[in-house]
């Protein structure tokens, strides 16, 4: 049914094109205008460029301002303020060039349209101009790059010693979250140890792992440095926390990291936006298969006190599932039992 409709539509379209085409050739032959150059259509095209400039330019401004609050994501990390400032500075600079060059492009097209008795200027080069418009962009770009480079160096510098560590492991199609527990040291892992009960392949012969615990949400404190240790178990994934202005690929066999300082709690953000449902989110931005579009986790930013309280409440892996350390050698087992029996 649809197929029939579509083919009829296409057929009609072709017919219309053909008719228009025939009619206008006949007219142009009758008028003898097919040999002229300064035709009405030349003029119409010139005018259309101006119409486009004004129409499209107006639309762009109107939409950019009207929608600003919609496309501008709230920022919730300290470096995000810096990168967003860079973004808007770049927008101002490029926006200016964008508008200027387009005004010139379309204005020239309109103004210098073909006239029968006119002759174009013979103007093949001008070294001074060339040098100017090589140097000016070079200088502007240098300024932009240097400021970008400073920001980049700060963002990618080693994390502070006391950063709170959270491990994010991507797999098809979710993120597994692991905390290092009170010692702030994640236990070793080896992908060959992965099983149904030990989905992260944690090596429980490493005693750093005894207090490690899992979480369903990334809970982090406001105003303190947080270090994401990122890895992947099967294919590439990428951690994207849009409000934190944070992105880093998760690569099997090559752990990566990203540290940042969240500067707004979830509650503050809810209040600011007047949206009680608001959550910070993590998405995946490296195509990883069927469920790529659904790898969601929530980040909950809380006050530092609240964070410490939350950490203290969590149960280590081995407490939840003592099986995991059942086969450890005696002295390690003893140590593990302390964690298991802890109240």
């Amino acid at each position: 049914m649809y197929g029939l409709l579509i083919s009829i539509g296409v057929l009609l379209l072709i017919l219309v094109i053909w008719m228009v085409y025939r009619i206008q050739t006949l007219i142009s032959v009758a008028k003898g205008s097919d040999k002229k150059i300064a035709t009405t259509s030349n003029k119409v095209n010139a005018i259309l460029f101006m119409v486009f400039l004004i129409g499209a330019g107006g639309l762009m401004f109107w939409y950019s301002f009207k929608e600003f609050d919609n496309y501008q994501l709230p920022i919730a990390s300290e470096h995000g303020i810096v990168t967003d400032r860079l973004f808007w500075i770049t927008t101002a600079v490029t926006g200016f060039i964008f508008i200027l060059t387009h005004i010139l492009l379309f204005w020239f097209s309109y103004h210098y349209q073909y006239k029968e008795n006119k002759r174009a200027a013979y103007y093949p080069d001008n070294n001074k101009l060339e040098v100017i418009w090589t140097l000016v962009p070079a200088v502007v770009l240098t300024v932009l790059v240097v400021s970008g480079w400073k920001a980049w160096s700060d963002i990618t510098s080693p994390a502070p010693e006391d950063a709170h560590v959270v491990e994010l492991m991507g797999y098809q199609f979710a993120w597994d979250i692991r905390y290092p527990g009170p010692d702030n040291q994640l236990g070793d892992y080896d992908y060959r140890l992965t099983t149904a009960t030990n989905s992260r392949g944690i090596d429980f012969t490493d005693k750093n792992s005894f207090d490690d615990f899992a979480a369903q949400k990334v809970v982090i404190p406001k105003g303190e440095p947080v270090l994401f240790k990122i890895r992947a178990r099967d294919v590439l994934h990428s951690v994207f926390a849009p409000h934190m202005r944070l992105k880093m690929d998760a690569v099997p066999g090559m752990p990566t990291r990203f540290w940042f300082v969240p500067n707004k709690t979830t509650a503050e953000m809810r209040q600011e936006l007047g949206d009680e449902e608001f959550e910070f989110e993590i998405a995946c931005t490296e195509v990883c298969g069927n469920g790529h579009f659904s790898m969601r986790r929530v980040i909950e930013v809380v006050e530092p006190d609240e964070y410490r309280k939350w950490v203290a409440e969590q149960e280590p892996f081995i407490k939840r599932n003592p099986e995991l350390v059942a086969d450890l050698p005696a002295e390690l087992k003893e140590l593990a039992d302390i964690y298991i029996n802890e109240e």
Partner: protein
Amino acid sequence: MAVANVSAHDVSNHDHHDHEHKDNFITKYIFSTDHKMIAKQYLISGMFWAFIGGLLSVLFRLQLGFPEMDLSFLRPILGGWIDSAGKLDPNFYLALVTMHGTIMVFFVLTAGLSGTFSNFLIPLQIGARDMASGFMNMLSYWFFFISGVIMFASLFLEKGPAAGGWVVYPPLSALEQAIPGSGLGMTLWLIAMTFFIASSLMGGINYITTVINLRTKGMSFSRLPLTIWAFFLTAVIGLLSFPVLFSAALLLVFDRSFGTSFYLSDIYIGGEALPNTGGSAVLYQHLFWFLGHPEVYIVLLPALGITSEVIATNSRKPIFGYKAMIISMLGITILSFVVWAHHMFVSGMNPFLGSIFMFLTLIIAVPSAVKVFNYLTTLWRGNLRFTPGMLFSIGLVSFFISGGLTGIFLGNSAIDIQLHDTYFVVAHFHLVMGAASFFGMMAGVYHWFPKMFGRMMDEKLGHVHFWLTFVGVYMVFFPMHYIGIAGFPRRYYSWTNFSFTDMYTDLNMFVSVASIITFVAQFIFIFNFFYSMYKGRKASLNPWQSNTLEWTTPLHPAHGNWPGEIPSVYRWPYDYSKPGAKEDFIPQTVPLSATPESNLPHENKLVQLEKEIMAEEGDVLVANETKES
């Protein structure tokens, strides 16, 4: 130089005679060694692939714009990829995106653009009988054809074609367990690309040797039209970068089929730990983008070359800053090899490398800016004729500005953290690469159609086609900037899972509708193209009053291009509206000695030299004639 020319004339003269006697349908239209026919073969193939690629994009835009829509009506074409509820399969969505990218980048904008216009214009504009090796040129096309057949076949596999994105990053592309498309579909992708690379290399070698060796007398490098400079540099880039893609693909084949671990390490998938250790997924990205970034210039440079020619001709003005244009193209050529890792700022590579590549990337924006300013100055005080070719060239300049400027955001690694793999990148490269190169291709078709088929395309339909496409492309890609700034990730089947992306359904719908309109508008072109091929108005010999050599050939040039001697060249190709001259153009074949009224002071000095060359030419002619009789 002179020697090479003389012998080339000789040899091809023979060719020329041979062909007139024994051309049959197969040697003329199928296994042709005539560069003009091969160019047309590339063009028609390119149009076919553009249709397929466009159709795929309409399919996934339906999903993105109308996520609730019942797509059952597509079941006759897509079969099992539409589930019982009328929904598109997410795996197939990824396959569509992947195939769309692969087809557009390689088959349409590389083969369709370079293949068509390098083949068609190099011999005609430098004054050669044919390519250096007509046979290799034919092989180049047929390797491309085979590549296309294989890629096309992969669309119909039960498990679907490759689906890991056009960049096919491993491990996703290496492991069949990870996604169905990484099975036979990926194998066929790799085979097809191998043929494609071989085809590109054969084409490229031919373009380079032809430009270096077969230029006609007087056609020095400083008199080459900018089209030829662009094709030449494009071929150089291709020759240096495609082999790297081949090695990337080869290692991927090893990893897929022979158990090696170049890219694979520490993988647990499908309930099983794989034995591979020590490989690096990031290594593949380095190899891929070492081709991938130059590739974007392989796609763009020919379009810029075509535009330079079309804008100069239709502004009736010399291109402004001919030398600066060449230098910036040379700059782009060299720099394009040292910026690849800007695609990998957040891939986990060393951040120090990120800093280096940020600096190198922003340097490449400078020659791009110079080119834009030169185009603008060429229009300034011109006498503009809005032929469809000219309209599309102006459109290209607009897209090049819009898309190039967003490159400055992305090249800044600090800003790219947020924008990487969002729709902002999609907007960037579709404008600067997709739309700009597509417009370059269209400009080329409209401009050289009379030379290809001896008839004119209809101007008014061309105008309508331009305006619909120009406005359409902006309607499709401009909104993507907002969507990208809002953080929408690429290659998402649906956005409703996240609250930060659970909006802009209206804008996405708008984009989808615009893309369908733009796609349908292309049928105006298809109609115009095929109708004019047979029924168009007969073209005059030099319909645009252009200076370059191709317009000195007969209306339907035979194999060999010029019936008699190849004309010699006495001046650069941009003597438009020269003060003192009667006409507003002076073809390259007009000697300086014939135009004393318009010569510039330094040109008057060259007149003497020119006379000597003409005398020598006379001797050669006599010598040739005695040889032949």
